[in-house]
């Protein structure tokens, strides 16, 4: 537990005044997926850490950006709560700030909402070195633009997160994990049929010729659904391995990540299908579908960035001091 906000703001103001650029980093766990950022000086946020406030009965936790995801998960578990979006901490690492900036949600996303959905507020520093608070600790809040959720997935391009308030959820009293062998096309059909039914699903994924599903809720509900969906018992660690990209296929076969309409028919490139069909981990990086990002590269890098996003970047960071390789116009590339 350490409050390094003052030092962080000092360093940002120094960078602003001296026109040096900063590459923002937490524990670096997402670099494998999103690449490493460029910038003159490293701004390490791991020293700004600790849970600032946790109110279980209000379903909200506020943690400093450098707090490890493990610490947050443990703190919540002690009170029977969790982060419903199952944000991944790759290789047992990862910070709250890092995972929010990366905008990554786990397998429960289509059923329990995204990490972005649970963000209630942020305290951040913009490129002018100003400390700003957007949103708050309450679930309903429509005062001002929703800058807090805009920060999710922006990879630090708009500012440096100091702390984040997240809505938390109760842990499920019972969980059941099941599997059934089937080809990808059948799996996608099953996923779509089940997703439209009032089933207590919290995971629906296909990999290596097997459809996996996870159900959760009261023990009686899990039991009744187990009977209804009829599959073999599955190892629950499958879901953490899927979340953390530690299934064998991720080390050898996967080259890209695609977010697609969930009913998109699978093709030979789909190695792993998650999110009830919406998230595809793919072999090639073919451009036959939109919304594809190469493993090891940020979707905010590269050419063809919408000028609106560049203007938004300028609205927060006019001197382009944060992660300058993100959201740049083609001309400067």
């Amino acid at each position: 537990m350490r409050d390094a906000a003052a030092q962080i703001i000092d360093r940002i103001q120094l960078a602003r005044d001296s026109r040096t650029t900063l590459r923002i980093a937490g524990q670096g766990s997402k670099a494998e997926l999103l690449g490493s950022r460029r910038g003159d000086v490293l701004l390490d946020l791991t020293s700004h850490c600790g849970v600032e406030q946790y109110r279980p009965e209000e379903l909200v936790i506020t943690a400093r950006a450098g707090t490890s995801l493990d610490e947050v998960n443990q703190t919540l578990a002690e009170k029977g709560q969790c982060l419903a979006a199952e944000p991944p901490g790759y290789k047992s690492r990862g910070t709250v700030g890092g995972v929010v900036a990366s905008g990554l949600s786990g397998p429960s996303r289509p059923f329990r909402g995204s990490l972005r959905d649970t963000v209630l507020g942020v305290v951040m520093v913009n490129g002018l070195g100003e400390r700003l608070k957007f949103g708050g600790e309450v679930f309903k809040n429509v005062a001002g633009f929703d800058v807090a959720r805009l920060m999710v997935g922006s990879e630090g391009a708009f500012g440096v997160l100091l702390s984040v308030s997240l809505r938390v959820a109760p842990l499920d009293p019972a969980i059941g994990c099941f599997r059934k062998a089937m080809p990808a096309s059948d799996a996608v059909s099953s996923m779509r049929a089940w997703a439209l039914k009032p089933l207590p699903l919290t995971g629906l994924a296909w990999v290596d010729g097997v459809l996996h599903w996870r159900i959760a809720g009261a023990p009686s509900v899990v039991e009744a659904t187990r009977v209804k969906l009829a599959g073999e018992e599955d190892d629950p660690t499958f879901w953490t391995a899927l979340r953390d990209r530690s299934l064998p296929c991720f080390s050898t076969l996967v080259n890209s990540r695609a977010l697609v309409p969930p009913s998109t028919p699978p093709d030979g490139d789909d190695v792993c299908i998650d999110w009830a069909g919406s998230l595809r981990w793919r072999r090639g990086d073919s451009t036959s579908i939109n919304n594809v990002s190469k493993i090891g590269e940020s979707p905010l890098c590269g050419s063809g960035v919408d000028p609106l996003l560049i203007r938004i970047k300028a609205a927060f960071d006019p001197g382009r001091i944060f992660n300058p390789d993100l959201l740049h116009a083609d001309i400067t590339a």
Partner: protein
Amino acid sequence: MTLEAARTELINFLGPDLILDPAGKRPYETDGLTAIREEPWAVALPRTRDAVLRALDICKRHQVPLVPRGAGTGLSGGARPIKEGLLLSLARLNRILDIDLANGVARVEPGVRNLAISEAVAKHGLFYAPDPSSQIACSIGGNVAENAGGVHCLKYGLTVHNVTGITFATLDGVVRTVGGLGTDPLGIDLRALLCGSEGLLGIVLEVTVRLTPLPENKAVMLGAFHSLADAGNAVAHIISSGLIPAGLEMMDRLAIKAAEDFVHAGYPLDAEALLICELDGLALEVESDRERVEACMRADGAYRIDVATDAVSQQRLWAGRKAAFPAVGRLAPDYYCMDGTIPRVRLAEVLDHISAFSKEYGLPVAIVFLAGDGNLHPLILYDANVPGELEKVEEFGSRILSQCVAVGGAVSGEHGVGIEKLGPMCDQFTSAELEQFFRLKAAFDPENLLNPGKAIPTLQRCVEAGGMHVHGGREGGREPFHHLERF
């Protein structure tokens, strides 16, 4: 700004879809915040996306400000017209474009009514979850602009949680789609920024909404308590026991009495507080949850608990709450509905303040509390015909909202800022934060023609209104507006 030239161009292509005569414009003078009116310069009612884009182009070229409007049910004056601006109604873009069962979404135009979506997909066992009280009339475009909530948002979320794609236009005529049929977009996600942006960033042309499977079973419970504090404790216990009810709302004595007199829902008139709790899910789940909620309520002193398991009695239990606003409206010539949010643990403290203000101003207040999500709706009773009373009510309301901010809440939970809460916004945000909002708006609308003057107060306004409070417990130690002159 050349209004004349703009008028000629608009008439030429809109013909009868442009309203210029005072009688025709009258219904558009106000939205759900009826206390404040303004006659728009002109009202455009385009029928197609192309017509909308053409109207935008004309406004841009002639520098005419533009106020977008959905169904006009908003409660904060977000759609109040500007005297020398065009009121752009999107109500006629009202087609459901596609019900895409394979992807579990519906693509709709902005003028489609909220309830019409649920009605259209009910036969497939689906519904569109956000259900603001005005859902019979309000439109999805307006829902996006206000990030509308509803009775069931504790479990199912607000508009922002249920919209997968938004197609919008900026004034330069560029049409963008963020998100779509899939769950999330890759990279920057502008959807959340657009939800609740009150028409300041772009004009919504199409919305893709997520459809949710209808729950198999439902139960509505009513708990009667001898004090608001007991009911508040019961809420805390229900939530900390690991339950997320579909809806969880509280009413105080005055609200109970008003509702009961109005709709005869069967509410106990001797209760100081009522808790209405809706549970849904699989039949087994509802049954076990019901037992848990009942135990929580009893433990905190509920002296009467009613459970409705059939649709008719469920509707009856909700009827009182849903009619609470108009019911309270019968108690006095006028009422003013506030919409702050607070951390639930601070409820007792905030209610004490409200009750002290109520004595000070001599104006009664009824309380409806969306307890699950901390959204407080104090309804101040007054008589607008008494000179000075409206001003008194506004001051009273502002003080309630300041109190919400002081305990760590927000000045608007679901009604939006519009023009109504511009003053209280100065309490919640520092000058640096407000300037950041304006820079963000300028990234979308550099000429400040889209709904100018709404949602975000200018620094000048904040200083003039004396909004220079140092926030309690606020970090940073900066005094807001430190660089501005004081009056």
